[in-house]
């Protein structure tokens, strides 16, 4: 078995008096599309921020692609942050130029192809885009990178059905050709669950359930039902 891409051992994270992750243990397998699911406030985004080294744990051990998290490691990771926006003064072309200048492994040609395929006009300014168009651009900024790990934190939140379909199509197309590990957290579970090879369900700062997506579905029904059960106190898990 290949080394896990992300490994957390007994990690604790708190913001002030609020415990976010508690004795958090996880091993993410490589070259898979992994769903990180769970109700709001369960700790999914905090988990991603720890992988990126954006926040620091209170204690515990974290290894990402064999290294400690931090800026030195981030050239290997494409990260779409939760509730993010793109720089309003950029055009799509400017954003791609920015990616080429600043993001290691960024393939500008691929970004242009993806923009065309996702129906985004390259001369359009970001602050004149709809939220769905902006979400598509941000996804392009991640998918156009040749890196071993891609993290997409809520890539479908607040966007229209058309954009969601476009993003989903891009992901399906992308995951079939790539060798990367892709972590996706989403509340649009019904539409996205077909993408996942394996799933980790997080609740109240701990991994409540994990396994291969198909096995979990066979055992518990749909992922949606699982997360719903979790939101109601984990009854029936």
């Amino acid at each position, binding site marked *: 078995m290949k080394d896990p891409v992300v490994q957390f051992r007994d990690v604790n994270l708190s913001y002030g008096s609020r415990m976010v992750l508690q004795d958090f243990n996880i091993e993410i397998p490589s070259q898979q599309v992994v769903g990180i699911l769970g109700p709001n406030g369960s700790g999914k985004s905090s988990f991603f921020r720890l992988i*990126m080294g*954006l926040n620091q744990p209170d204690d515990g051990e974290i290894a990402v692609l064999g290294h400690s998290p931090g800026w030195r490691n*981030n050239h290997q990771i494409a990260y779409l*942050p939760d509730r993010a926006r*793109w720089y309003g003064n950029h055009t799509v072309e400017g954003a791609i130029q920015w990616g080429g200048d600043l993001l290691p492994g960024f393939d500008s040609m691929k970004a242009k192809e993806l923009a065309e395929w996702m129906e985004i006009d390259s001369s359009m300014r970001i602050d004149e885009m709809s939220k769905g168009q902006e979400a598509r651009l941000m996804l392009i900024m991640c998918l156009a990178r040749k890196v071993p790990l891609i993290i997409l934190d809520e890539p479908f939140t607040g966007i229209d059905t058309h954009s969601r379909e476009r993003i989903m199509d891009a992901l399906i197309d992308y995951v079939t050709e790539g060798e990367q590990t892709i972590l996706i957290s989403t509340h649009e579970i019904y539409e996205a669950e077909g993408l996942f090879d394996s799933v980790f369900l997080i609740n109240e700062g701990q991994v409540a359930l994990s396994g291969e997506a198909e096995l979990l579905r066979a055992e518990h029904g749909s992922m949606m039902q699982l997360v719903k059960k979790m939101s109601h106190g984990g009854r029936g898990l």
Partner: protein
Amino acid sequence: MSNLGVLLQHEWKLKAKRREKRGKIKMPRVWLYVYSGIVVALVVILATYLGWKGQTRFVQIWNFNWGMLFWAIGIAVQNIKREWSNETVGWWLALPYSRGNLISAKFIASLLRWAKTLALVYLGLFAFMTYVMLLEGDGAKIPDTLVTGVEWYVIVLSLSPFVISLGTVSALLRRSTLQPIFPLIWGVGNLIINAVAALFLLTPLTLGTKCIFILISWVITLGLLRLAVHLLERHVVI
């Protein structure tokens, strides 16, 4: 181009203003021109009145530099705050570059932007004073005033690294686990700025003394920038 160069270019191109929220109605550009025109007209009327009245002494006018130092803090704070208010902080901090490079790029961009703003303010002031002096028939004073103004520009610009680094640290502290020490740093920092401004504006210092104060401020600047890097590495929360 080096990483720092590319980061600096990115910071320089960013808009200083906060991104417009969706649904918010923008002030039509024509109205901005109308209001700007009214302000310029009022300034011209004031300058004409002063020139017509005569005997205008531009002595205490340089005290406006006191306020300039606080304006510089605002520019630095805004430069950091913008990442959070525009919701780009995740992209910024995920960049695979040293926190020192990220902070240096913001610091240099703030300093350059500030040098430009300050130069425009001074040019406006020169135009105002020159107009008044010409109306008064006192054109011979213009070169002296120009030299005094350039001296003040250099002094304020030399003190600006300290002020901008203080603004940078303050903005980061407010978004970090060390937030409780923000009032302390902010209070002490403002006290120092007021003391330095009073010293430079109200007391006759020799050039040597001024240079010593400026050098000390640069040493403190380096310490503050190091603190900013430490905050980004260990304490900032997003």
